[in-house]
């Protein structure tokens, strides 16, 4: 430990790690945005990163340092020893841009990260602060790429055609000269694959699910939260227990019964079954919220001659509106994203929900970009709702315990 806690060694190692991370990120970014080959050079990013790390120990002016590293990287890149190896197709422009990006994003953050370091022996605080700063920077890059790349690929693939996809899987440039032709996959999905009707089915099934769920779970949650009766504690627990039964285990007998009664392949069957999967979670979330409401207000209502039902309707529900919004959003999300039951119970393309419709695109006869366009259509509405109402949604997710 004492050896690593040396200003020179720490600065060099962190400098190298960070430079290599940035080299990879810039190479991937440039490949994805131009389609030309870029790859990080282990050797030269090591040298440049370690050098910059050591340099920060003595000279700390951000602007000069960043500009210096940028120039140095570009110069080295020109003579073929750059931190990022650039294929011939990319030309001088590629070299300059990638080297400049590398220089900027290596030097600037490094200066902040290594602020606490001094030449020679470090104490524990100085050392750990630098390590934590590095891990934080690395974490932001890691999480952001890990989360965004699949969505980025999903959107970009949906805008391409079969030939472009096979030719260069790395090329995610958008050819704006194609104009509206860019959205051909989407147009075809709505025109030939009936996606307009799937969208509508998914929407009204989800909304119906929300209403039925609320109608069942509000009285139940109120009873569990406020009324005293034998078996209340046991009931509270068994709600959670029902949560633990896997859907696939229930789907099998439901499939059998629906096949025999003719409910399979009908929207009615789907609307009957979706709320039951969401009622327990909604009841659990709502009773937690109802408990937090002051019971004095309700008691005042009772004293003034309201019945229990009137108390729920006129006092509890208006107070619980934010919770109702959270629960509704959460239930809507579950119903919208539901796949297993729709997949097992619906066979008729005229009655597909959106998730079932996207699943039907997953065949060798349907081109990849159609599948991805379908995925985008399924994702966009729920994302729009999520971003617009994030506050409620996050609350719903937290309160809804950890249903997955």
């Amino acid at each position, binding site marked *: 430990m004492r050896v690593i806690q040396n200003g020179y060694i720490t600065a060099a190692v962190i400098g190298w790690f960070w430079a290599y991370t940035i080299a990879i990120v810039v190479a991937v970014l440039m490949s994805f945005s131009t389609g030309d080959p870029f790859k990080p050079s282990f050797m030269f990013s090591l040298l440049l990163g370690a050098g910059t790390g050591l340099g920060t120990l003595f000279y700390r002016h951000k602007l000069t340092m960043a500009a210096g590293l940028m120039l140095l990287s570009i110069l080295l890149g020109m003579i073929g020893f750059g931190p990022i190896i650039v294929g011939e197709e990319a030309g001088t422009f590629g070299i300059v841009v990638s080297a400049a990006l590398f220089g900027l994003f290596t030097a600037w953050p490094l200066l902040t990260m290594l602020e606490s370091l001094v030449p020679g022996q470090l104490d524990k605080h100085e050392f750990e602060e630098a390590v934590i700063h590095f891990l934080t920077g690395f974490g932001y890059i890691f999480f952001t790429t890990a989360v965004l790349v699949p969505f980025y690929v999903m959107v970009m693939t949906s805008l391409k055609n079969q030939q472009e996809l096979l030719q260069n899987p790395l090329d995610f440039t958008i050819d704006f000269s194609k104009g509206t032709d860019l959205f051909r996959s989407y147009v075809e999905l709505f025109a030939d694959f009936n996606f307009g009707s799937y969208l509508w089915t998914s929407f009204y099934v989800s909304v119906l699910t929300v209403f039925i769920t609320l*109608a069942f779970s509000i009285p139940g949650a109120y009873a569990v939260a406020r009324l005293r009766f034998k078996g209340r504690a046991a009931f509270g627990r068994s709600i959670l227990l029902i949560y*633990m039964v896997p859907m696939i285990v229930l789907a099998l007998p439901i499939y059998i019964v629906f096949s025999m009664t003719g409910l399979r392949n009908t929207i009615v069957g789907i609307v009957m*079954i979706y709320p*039951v999967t969401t009622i327990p979670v909604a009841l659990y979330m709502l009773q937690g919220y109802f408990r937090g409401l002051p019971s004095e207000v309700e008691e005042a209502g009772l004293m003034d001659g309201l019945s229990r039902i009137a108390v729920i309707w006129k006092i509890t529900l208006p107070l619980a509106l934010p919770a109702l919004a959270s629960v509704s959003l959460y239930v809507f999300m579950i119903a919208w994203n539901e796949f297993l039951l729709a997949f097992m119970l619906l066979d008729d393309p005229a009655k597909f929900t959106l998730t079932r419709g996207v699943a039907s695109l997953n065949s060798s006869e349907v081109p990849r970009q159609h599948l991805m366009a379908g995925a985008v259509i399924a994702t966009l509405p729920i994302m729009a709702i999520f971003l617009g109402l994030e506050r409620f949604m996050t609350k719903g997710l937290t309160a809804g315990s950890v249903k997955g």
Partner: protein
Amino acid sequence: MSTAVPPKGTGPLARREARLAWGLLFPTIFSVSLVVILPLLAIFWVSFKPIGLEDLRPPETVVREQLRGRPAEAGDDATLRYRIRNSSQNKPLSDVSITDTLPDGLTVVQVDERCSIDGVLLTCELGDFEGGQRENIEIDVTVSQAFLDADPDLEDTPTITTGTGENILTNSEFTLENFARIFDGREFWAVLYATMFYTIVGTIGALVVGLFAALLLNKEFRGKGIMRGLYLFPYVAPVIAVAFSWVTLFDPFSGSVNALLVQMNAIDSPINFFGQRPQALIMVTVFEIWRYFPLSFLFILARMQSIDTDMYEAADMDGASPFQKFWYLSLPMLLGILSVLFLLRFIWTFNKFDDIFLLTGGSAGTRTLTVNVYEQAFAVSNIGAGAAVAVVIFGFLLAFSIFFFKFMSREEGL
């Protein structure tokens, strides 16, 4: 004077309250037991039955009615033919009979010996049918002009059929073969291994990654809200969309990741990430971590923000380093939520079906117990074996839940 005694038992008010409570709970209890408890019982019942996908339709009598001989004028001969068959190829039908109203204007010349005619009402007793058996009944008739003018559609008077086939779902035939089949040999252990690997690594991975993400966002800075929303994306998006994006991304022929790795000389030839052992199992586990870390992240972050800052100030005064503060202060405070999350996520990962089904379909060593239910019931068309796997899953869950509730009672609930 007698001393005041507290009332014993429940008074009328309490009873009324309890009645109201049960009344309010009734719809929920009713619907949930209908869709959860009954199916669970059904699963136990079916798991002891030798039943396949095709047995879901019990055998029945199918009949088609035809007028043959092309009668053109009044007085022509014709044949009224009924073709009767057993819809099942291998199950017998007993007491088959048909009843039909003959159309007006036909004069019956000769009747099949198994049938009798009462006015216009034709009744035929056909006895028992073997599986797949077919019979024809022919009735010779002469047509009248009235019949030719009316040209009635024979299907207008539907033929009524009877015939009872044995419904395998309700008879008393039981077997242990389903269980013998699923516990048979190495396959069961391979499935159990995949399930346990996926569950344990996936759960711990999601917790650790979620903890790391929560540490990143546990401070105030501009754009924190956006960051938090962004990190929840994988969980909020429909599983079908993200699963297919991953499959596209890691495709061996046109996938970007393989192209990228080849270009950077990290690998020589493309890897079939979702199609070969052991990469497939690792990849579905990584997907599970990617998709569910937001959940643990959200909970851990919420708990972190409720930790009292006084403690950290005291630690600063005592000269604790950042890592020491995390190890000796934050982690013990988070232990409660971490263990609750672990238990819940463990059970839900164990129950996960959609993700693996969409990514690999259970091939290349990724068949977990839940995927096996589908595989047995629908791919192999053996509903009984599928139900038997479901019973095994249920057994595991029961064990987990008992453990869970023992533990939960000590932890403050979520």
